[in-house]
């Protein structure tokens, strides 16, 4: 059996444990990625990225929450760090309850390619839409997109 997954390794940085499991289940049920990893803080994510910099299992898609309690820097700063310090061919985006335009502008500036509103009723549908767009995000042939 050969795998047909476009996303090899998916990372979700989310401090809300309940939502992170919800996200993982939605990702599993929609066959979003070959591997799904959850981290609770931006510090953990930075360390993980530093350690897997030259690793074949380094995440190729990252969902980051903006407000991360217990982290030394927020999700937008994490996106900037991953994008400019560790990332190459990594699709990075935000998954947040916030719908603030100013934050979205910062996210785009820092290299985010998509924004998913957390309070979406049908997360599975959103992830399926995202799955369809992923190839375009990877090729950078699609503009910043908001899923809501």
């Amino acid at each position: 059996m050969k795998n047909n997954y476009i996303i090899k390794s998916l990372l979700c940085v989310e401090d809300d444990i309940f939502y992170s499991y919800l996200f993982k289940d939605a990702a599993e049920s929609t066959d979003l990625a070959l591997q799904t990893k959850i981290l609770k803080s931006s510090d953990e994510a930075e360390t993980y990225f530093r350690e897997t910099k030259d690793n074949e299992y380094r995440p190729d898609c990252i969902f980051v929450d903006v407000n991360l309690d217990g982290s030394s820097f927020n999700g937008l700063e994490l996106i900037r760090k991953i994008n400019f310090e560790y990332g190459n061919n990594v699709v990075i985006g935000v998954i947040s309850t916030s719908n603030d335009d100013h934050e979205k502008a910062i996210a785009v500036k820092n290299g985010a390619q998509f924004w998913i509103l957390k309070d979406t009723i049908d997360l599975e549908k959103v992830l399926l839409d995202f799955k369809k767009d992923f190839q375009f995000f990877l090729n950078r042939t699609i503009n910043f997109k908001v899923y809501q």
Partner: protein
Amino acid sequence: MKINDTLFIELLELSKTKEIYLSGDIVKHLVSDNDEQDQYFKKCIEVHKKTAKERFAVSQKALIQNDQLKKQQSVNQKLVVELTARNQELHLEKEKTSNILTLVKKDKENVEVKLKLMESEKKFDIMAKALNWILILVAVIIIGIITIYLSHLFLGKDMEVVSNQVFTILSNLMIASISIVSALFGVKSLQEKHN
């Protein structure tokens, strides 16, 4: 990643007898050697997805309920704040009403006292006026008697009877006058004391 035949037979047996399948991301990394393995791995992924889907549905339901509870809690907190504010307003209103009632009670007491004073003042005034009139009457009588006495004296009439009568009346009137003046002073001092 591949699994050997012995392990696969055991896994297959486990799935048939107890419906236990491999699950998690590991299943997606397995590579099959034959159709039977391929079918088994597909089944494993299917079961894994189904379980995730069911778990997701339950979690989502719980999340929605949690959001609703949070919203309700927020509404309840607002209501508590509003009720507390209303309660404080009512308490202040009650205090104001109580203060007004106390003032009204005091005013009523003051009016009652004033009315009593006015009543007694009026009584004293009437008494004083009556005594004044009596005193004026006495003075008029005295003047009349003195006039009669002097007319008898200048006309050269018998003075013995007249003078006896005049002195008796005058002495009586003098006593009466002193009594009236004393009564007037008494009334005045009582009036002052009362005020």
